[in-house]
């Protein structure tokens, strides 16, 4: 099947994450061994974007699907791509237990704090309401994950760090451990931000609430 151009909104952070993933896999010669499952929401738009095996799943269900795949085909490198809603709200129960059991899959969470495709409703990482705490995914999972599991947070405007973390997450999976990277991302469509406002919100707001680094 020919690779199609992706259908993300202009200025979306998702394709940056996918491009970095492709770059890392290509450099390490792992493209043929990779398989990527997609959660529902904006994540699903990446279904024919990279030259690796890809399939769509259901909302919140990418982690259990990928661990089933991985347990059946251990020589493949399994990625589950999800938004903050799919990972930390509807998919949290499965994500928590996959981390607890140290399932050797790599979960990629694109955190833009909103449900993008459905119209910008507040996600579990929403920071606009001071009376409600956002979900700190990697920090919470650190409590139950093994010491060898790789958990980190980076941002889509730091491609160097993105590649470094992705490579380490792949290493963790190759060594038989769970890994999750949260990518602070942007959604100008639903944030209703223009140009520089978008990256400014990411740098000055999101990065102060969600600490970037290995966790």
């Amino acid at each position, binding site marked *: 099947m020919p690779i199609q151009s992706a259908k993300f909104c202009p200025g979306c952070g998702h394709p940056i994450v996918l491009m970095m993933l492709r770059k890392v896999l290509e450099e390490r010669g792992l493209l043929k061994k990779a398989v990527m499952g997609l959660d529902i929401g904006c994540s699903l738009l990446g279904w*024919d974007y990279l030259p690796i*095996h*890809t*399939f769509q*799943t259901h909302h919140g269900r990418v982690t*259990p699907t*990928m661990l*089933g*795949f991985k347990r059946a085909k251990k020589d493949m490198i399994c990625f589950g791509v999800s938004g903050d809603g799919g990972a930390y709200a509807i998919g949290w129960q499965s994500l928590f237990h996959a981390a607890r059991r140290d399932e050797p899959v790599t979960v990629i969470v694109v955190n833009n704090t909103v449900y993008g495709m459905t119209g910008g409703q507040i996600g579990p990482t929403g920071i606009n309401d001071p009376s409600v705490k956002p979900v700190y995914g990697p920090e919470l999972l650190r409590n139950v994950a093994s010491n060898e599991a790789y958990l980190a947070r980076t941002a889509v405007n730091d491609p160097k760090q993105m590649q470094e973390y992705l490579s380490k997450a792949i290493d963790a999976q190759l060594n038989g451990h769970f890994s999750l990277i949260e990518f602070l991302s942007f959604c100008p469509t639903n944030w209703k931000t223009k140009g520089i406002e978008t990256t400014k919100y990411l740098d000055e707001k999101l990065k102060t609430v969600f600490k970037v680094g290995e966790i």
Partner: protein
Amino acid sequence: MIKSNKQFITGAEVVVQACRDAGATMMYGYPITPSSEILENWQKTGGKCLQTEDEIAAGFAVAGGALAGEKVFTATSGPGHILMQDALVMAEAMRIPMVTIAAQRGGPSSGTVIYSQQEVTLACYGGNGEGFRLVYSPASLDELYTLTRRAFNEAWQYGFPTIVLTDGYALKAQGIFTKPKLLRKNIPAKTLFGRDGAVHLPNIFATEEELYAKLEMIQTDYAKIKTKVETSYELGTKEADILVIAHGTVGASAEAAVLNLRKEKKKVGLFRPVTLRPFPAKNLNKLLATKKWKKVIIIESSYGQLARLVHDEIKVKNLPDILYLQKPGLGIEPEEIEEYIKKIK
């Protein structure tokens, strides 16, 4: 010592033997009565297994494993069967050979755990969509074995999810079981996701037309295999003028009743659908058209879930007089069926 291949075992143990003989290598499941014994027995006999956090995860792990080309299965019941529908519809859409053993509970809600035929509609049409799945209703230990094996083989041959629909009574009761000899070899597992050439498998569509084209393909495939899959069992229908229609455990009870009544020279026969989806419509219509039936009686442990399937499929001109014996969530014993039929004028 006398060597015998007879075993005195439970239905759950029979299911586990059938899964293993079908080539299953992995089970995902969550404990729920009355299907927990399948999970326990599979583990106890050395089967690879993961007890997940819920039935949703079990279902999607099965889907993921099957996508990767492993013969995987799950067993569930009642509220877990509802959660399983999430993965089952994905399996319908993406043509994933997902195998589920579903033990019916009395419902609605958590209900009871031994005796019920109230998950017929759920098993056949439980998802959003059109019910592109194969559902088998075993009436004996032998059928639990053969239909479980069929569930694996037909899932991997035709690429539709399959459900063996049973109940707590069938799984927990012990009986004498002799493993039947099967002539057919197992259908091997395969995966789309080999080493060369990236495969992209969608499950959501940008336009109505794209989905419609996909549905037309699935519907055509389903129609093509319908006559190969649909199966029914008949007893004494040639001489009978009263026809009993029942399935599963109630079907076994009806069979005992029909045998007893025939000894008393009553002209009673049994039609038992072995597959509920696709429903054995061709055989039923053929049978109904052979003569003018005095009465047709649909007997089930639900308020008409089997009757609805039957009514959907009856295509004969002169509809026979139909009676209903419906006791949702209750066991229906042969004696009760005999009494009921004897009272028919």
